[in-house]
């Protein structure tokens, strides 16, 4: 009982103290601040001491020199193509083949990607692989990577820098060629079905504005539309996503009732657009003379999209090969051996369709085989 009373007394005293310090304020905060500053100083000092002597760092390095550290800044995970691309990198750069992969998801923000590259530089990775979200704005950070002499391999979308030596090389797809293939396929189809080019009413659901894929695919279509005399009615962005593709298509169907070709700049948008078309009571297919809406798409990664090709829901898909991992690995091996890779290299890509009448396309003097899916 006495103990309890003692405790209660103590408790009371605390309360008075609490009350007091609420009134006076400042004191303890000042102490906390002093501690914080000390902490920072000590931490920074330690850090400096650890990094300063050359030998200690070397031993750390030699421990890990067996595996090549690759930092990969992916722009996000907006589409199936992107996921396949990420997966390709992850399955290529595994520990068994002598690599350590540090993966950073930029979540569609350039600021995140710049942050990621800076982190890679601080972590002293051996190679940086960058799949940039936009083309511009990379000069500063790539300069930092070059100062640290870390080779930067750009994949997929390109970077627009003042000095092209800021990155080692680029691997990716020729988006304009993809678009030319798709457009040429449409041209052949229109000619064979004896449709007046002026009756081809196209809407373009574009990708994320500013992305290389969007720029290349839009340009390919616009050029072909002028050349062949098609009616390219409107171009709206669908951000490479299924949800946006559906939303955009639904509103386009309300605005225009004569759409007969939908040109989607990736598969996800196409899937969304098909949903919207079906919901609006129209049907998709290559038979545009009988009121169907033809869907042309890109990528060819999504299983559902490929199945839709077989079912004639998507008429043709120009492939965009996401399997960059092996390509990048080959470049890293070449660099390790002291070689110089090509500045720009393209991955091989096909064109898929279920229509058997067109088996070959000629684009810019080169003949491409159409892969017929059954």
């Amino acid at each position, binding site marked *: *009982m006495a103990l*309890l009373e003692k*405790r*209660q007394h*103590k*408790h*009371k005293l*605390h*309360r008075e*103290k*609490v009350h007091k*310090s*609420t009134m006076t*304020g400042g004191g*303890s*905060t000042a102490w*906390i*601040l002093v501690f*914080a500053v000390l*902490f920072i100083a000590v*931490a*920074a000092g*330690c*850090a*400096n001491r*650890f*990094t300063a002597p*050359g030998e200690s*760092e070397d031993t*750390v*390095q030699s421990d890990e020199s067996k595996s090549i550290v690759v930092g990969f800044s992916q722009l996000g*995970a907006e589409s199936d193509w992107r996921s396949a691309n990420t997966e390709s990198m*992850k399955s290529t750069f595994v520990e068994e083949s002598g690599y350590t*992969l*540090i*993966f*950073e*998801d930029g*979540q*569609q*923000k*350039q*600021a995140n990607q*710049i*942050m*990621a590259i*800076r*982190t890679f530089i*601080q*972590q*002293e990775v051996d190679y940086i692989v960058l799949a940039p979200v*936009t083309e*511009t*704005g990379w000069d*500063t950070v790539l300069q930092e990577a070059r*100062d*640290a*002499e870390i080779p930067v391999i750009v994949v997929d979308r390109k970077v627009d820098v003042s000095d092209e030596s800021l990155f080692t090389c680029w691997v990716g797809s020729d988006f304009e060629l993809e678009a030319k293939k798709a457009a040429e396929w449409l041209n052949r189809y229109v000619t064979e079905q004896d449709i007046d080019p002026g009756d081809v009413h196209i809407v373009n659901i574009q990708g994320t*504005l*500013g992305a290389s894929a969007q720029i290349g695919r839009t340009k390919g279509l616009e050029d072909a539309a002028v050349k062949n005399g098609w009616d390219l009615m409107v171009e709206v962005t669908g951000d490479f996503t299924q949800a946006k593709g559906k939303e955009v298509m639904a509103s386009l169907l309300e605005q225009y009732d004569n759409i007969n070709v939908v040109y989607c700049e990736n598969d996800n948008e196409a899937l969304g657009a098909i949903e919207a078309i079906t919901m609006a009571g129209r049907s998709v297919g290559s038979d545009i003379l009988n009121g169907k809406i033809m869907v042309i798409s890109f990528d060819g990664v999504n299983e559902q999209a490929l199945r839709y090709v077989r079912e004639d829901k998507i008429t043709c898909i120009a492939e965009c090969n996401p399997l960059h991992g092996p390509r990048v690995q080959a470049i890293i091996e070449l660099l390790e051996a002291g070689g110089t890779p090509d500045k720009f290299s393209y991955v091989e890509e096909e064109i898929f369709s279920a229509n058997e009448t067109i088996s070959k396309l000629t684009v810019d003097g080169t003949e491409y085989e159409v892969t017929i899916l059954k």
Partner: protein
Amino acid sequence: MSQTKKAPAPKAGQGNKFSNMTDTNLLLFITIVVFFVMYIGAILIQGKGFLKPQTFFNILNGNAALIIVSCGMSIVMITGGIDISVGGVTALVSMCCAVYLDFHNGNIFMSVLIALAIGLAFGVVQGFLVAYLDIQPFIVTLAGMFFARGMTTIVNTDPFNVQNEAFVALKDTRIIIPGLGSVNKLGKYVDAYIEIGVVAALIVVVVLFCMLRWSKLGRGFYAVGGNPQSALMLGINVRRTKFISHVLCGLLAGIGGFVYFMHVGSGSPSHAQGMEMNAIASSIIGGTLLTGGVGNLIGTFFGVLSLNTIQNIVSSAGLNDAWWTGITIAGMLCLFLVVQSVVMARKKLAIKAKS
């Protein structure tokens, strides 16, 4: 009687060494300790990158804008409100400044004024609606967020990088921190640096910290957030205080927007997406109570750092999917909310015991 009183007694005994602190200071103390434990843990476990001071400075460089915006958020939260328009305002400021500098060949001084004006305008309108028309701050600022995002797209749809020479020079200006550089693997010494935005952020934190602690207005924010009725009885103009808190938050969103713009150097409608949520999370981790009345800007500062240190740790640890970051942050928020409710429970006990 003695049975009922037994329960709180040992609890108070446990909190012994902390009990001479106010709630604000206790929460601040916890935040700072957690940050340092996390950072030192990262140094010990992951080493390499975290050993270099530049890693820390990079966190500062990348988050200077978030620090400024979070300070505004904390102030509003201290008065018991919330402002979720800050991310949108940041994007709008970036876009307007980008368009002004690039398309209209403007100068930097004017672009700063534009940034401040936009922030101030949002603050004044939202503050008026919240304080004088008694509309829920969440709803008002939600509208503000949509409006700002919409306006950003109207100003310019496409993302683009600013080429204006004076601006690019300003953006690339680096303040070298002497003595904290490090030797990279090629044996080259690289200076540690911070960007101008970091200086701005530190000034904002210090100035506002002093304002909150020592000025009449600053104490007013706490009083209004703690209990508006009592504040009114104390002779504080509650409406005006709330209004000013929103104006300040808007203004800081403007400043933060410009600092953000200086960091990324481009205008884009997708800029600063989710920034308001990060600002709220940082404030909470920093010890600001959503219910108002408690909070500290130094805590907010460390809240931002903690949030980003954890992201850094997660990605360096090779837990490479984006959702890992999300989950760790969620875990951290939960932890801090629990700590906060414990602190609040302690306060309630103290009040009960007194009466």
